[in-house]
């Protein structure tokens, strides 16, 4: 290869380099900062350079920290419960509302409204609805002559309460993605299934759900990633309590940094969460890539045939 052609091949990289560098610094610096901080015994009053380097001590201590482990468990449980419920309800609603009836468009718009409200507002709203005496739920129960429910003051009920709030806000996300997936299904395949004798349920089970699967898996992973990071709703509604019953990880991190002033420990916690989310993200990318590759391979094979 001549020098000139070598240079030609390099030219695009030279032009791109400044932009890539800038992006890399802007993206990676804060993350690097956090990773570095997790190896320090660092107080907010200190300049980061003066903080004591403690190696993996923060990480190891956390491993043995009962409260951290519990909050990790609460987060896992929360994510699993809300995402399962949201998937079930969102997909179910989409299947139900995927039809051409008068007023459907308006109904669909109403269904996605919760998603557009700021989580902090959602938290406040539900907190007042859960209020032990003047909240709508307990007042209604009372008017029916039933005992009030200790929504936010009992460990189990408060977990249920935040789950309901999250499901209320985020089911619409699954709903619109599922609806979009449903509406882009090949109509003639569904008609063929109808002529093949499939009932409504059989069409859902054998045709619609399998064909929606790629979208559903992406929706599931996106929601999981989000559910692991939930903060505001829980912060406003229960502040993690009573006890540690709703102390999700973000809240624990927030508290560790804000109240206990242990920035290094908070950073280490964040990194545990980051690792978990990265695993999920990698799964999503690998899955997407696999779907794409498969589609590309099938297309290529079909063209050869």
């Amino acid at each position, binding site marked *: 290869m001549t020098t000139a052609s070598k240079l030609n091949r390099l030219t695009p990289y030279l032009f791109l380099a400044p932009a890539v560098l800038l992006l890399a610094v802007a993206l990676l610096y804060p993350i690097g900062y956090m990773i570095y901080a997790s190896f320090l015994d660092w107080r907010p009053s200190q300049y980061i350079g003066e903080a004591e380097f403690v190696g993996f001590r923060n990480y190891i201590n956390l491993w043995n920290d009962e409260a951290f482990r519990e909050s990790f468990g609460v987060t896992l449980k929360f994510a699993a419960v809300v995402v399962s419920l949201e998937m079930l309800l969102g997909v179910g609603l989409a299947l139900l509302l995927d039809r051409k009836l008068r007023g459907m468009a308006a109904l669909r718009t109403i269904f996605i409204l919760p998603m557009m409200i700021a989580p902090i507002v959602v938290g406040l709203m539900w907190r007042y609805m859960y209020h032990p005496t003047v909240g709508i739920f307990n007042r209604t129960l009372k008017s029916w002559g039933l005992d009030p429910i200790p929504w936010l003051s009992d460990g189990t009920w408060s977990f249920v309460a935040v789950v309901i709030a999250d499901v209320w806000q985020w089911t619409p996300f699954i709903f619109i993605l599922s609806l979009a997936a449903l509406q882009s299904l090949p109509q003639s395949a569904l*008609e*063929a299934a109808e002529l093949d004798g499939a*009932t409504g349920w059989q069409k859902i089970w054998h045709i619609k759900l399998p064909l929606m699967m790629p979208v559903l898996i992406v929706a599931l992973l996106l929601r999981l990633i989000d559910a692991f990071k939930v903060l505001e709703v829980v912060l406003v509604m229960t502040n993690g309590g009573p006890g540690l019953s709703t102390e999700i990880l973000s809240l624990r991190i927030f508290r560790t940094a804000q109240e206990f002033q242990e920035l290094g420990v908070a950073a280490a916690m964040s990194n545990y969460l980051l690792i978990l989310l990265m695993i999920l993200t990698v799964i999503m990318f690998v899955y997407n890539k696999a779907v794409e590759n498969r589609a590309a391979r099938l297309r290529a094979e079909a063209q050869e045939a």
Partner: protein
Amino acid sequence: MPTIRFEQVEKSFGAVRVLPPLDLSLNDGEFTVLVGPSGCGKSTTLRILAGLEELSGGEIFFDENPISGLASKDRDLAMVFQDYALYPHMNIAKNMSFALRLKKTPTAEIETKVKRVADMLNIGHLLDRKPAELSGGQRQRVAMGRALVRDASTFLFDEPLSNLDAKLRGKMRTELAEMRDTLDKNMVYVTHDQIEAMTLGDRIVVMSEGVIQQEGTPEQLFKEPANKFVAGFIGSPTMNFLDAELVSEKGKLLARGDGFNLPLPKELTSNLKDYSKREITLGVRPSSFSTDVKTGAPIELRLVVSEYLGAQSTLVTKCGEAEILVEHESSSPMKTGGVLKFGVRTEELMVFDKETERRL
């Protein structure tokens, strides 16, 4: 097999009426082709029969039983779709056996049936593949196979060959014709391609703008078209239509127009007695011209374009201002520009009322 009867069946989408009330009978065991240009209502008719569209009025009877209240799945129909409509996530065996599996047919029976049909259609080696791994022609066969496995009383085809290239379409047409002769089933076949209609149909129903123009055997439609539309739609290249007026000369009836003066067959005389001096449309098939001037009435045509096809050519000519297509048997191409003399076989001429377009 049931006899299928449409009685005053109509269909509107909102304010748009796509099918005015329509009567149609499909005889037992017959291969009926619904043919017409796009938008003529043929696909809608088929989809109403399949139960994929609700009718807006009238009733369809299978033998004497009304079926408009029945869901598609209860009508005992199998259908081949234009885009094949295979289930993308199932392999070919699963695609073909879907209906049988829903009916909880024993596995062994399913396997036998699928294998038999797959072998018949030469797709036996593809059973493990997914639809996306097949070529267009193979998918078409699978779609056909999925319908055949069903053993339904009536088969519906919605333009099944229109997504194939010309060569494959010809091949599949022949195979369909074979299948038609071996299967004793009702078959209803929708197409816009008159060649498919002519080669496959026991009976052809020509539709235009939602209205049935004519029903009949391929031969009837070709030789005795009811009107100008059918005459122009059936036959390839298409029939030439020329404005003319009727004149009587020495007891003979002539059609006279710009550049031609052709005697009409005697049989037409009585039909045309009210039309003297009135304007008519004269229909001449491209195949009615002969280079042997003596075989018919002479006519002079100016050659504009010669479409050389090998064994024959289609000549685009002008007679006065009117364009005339001529089918010309000749193994060598013609030079354009000159004036050619032809003989017209006058017994093949057709006359249409210029206003009603009815054949006279």
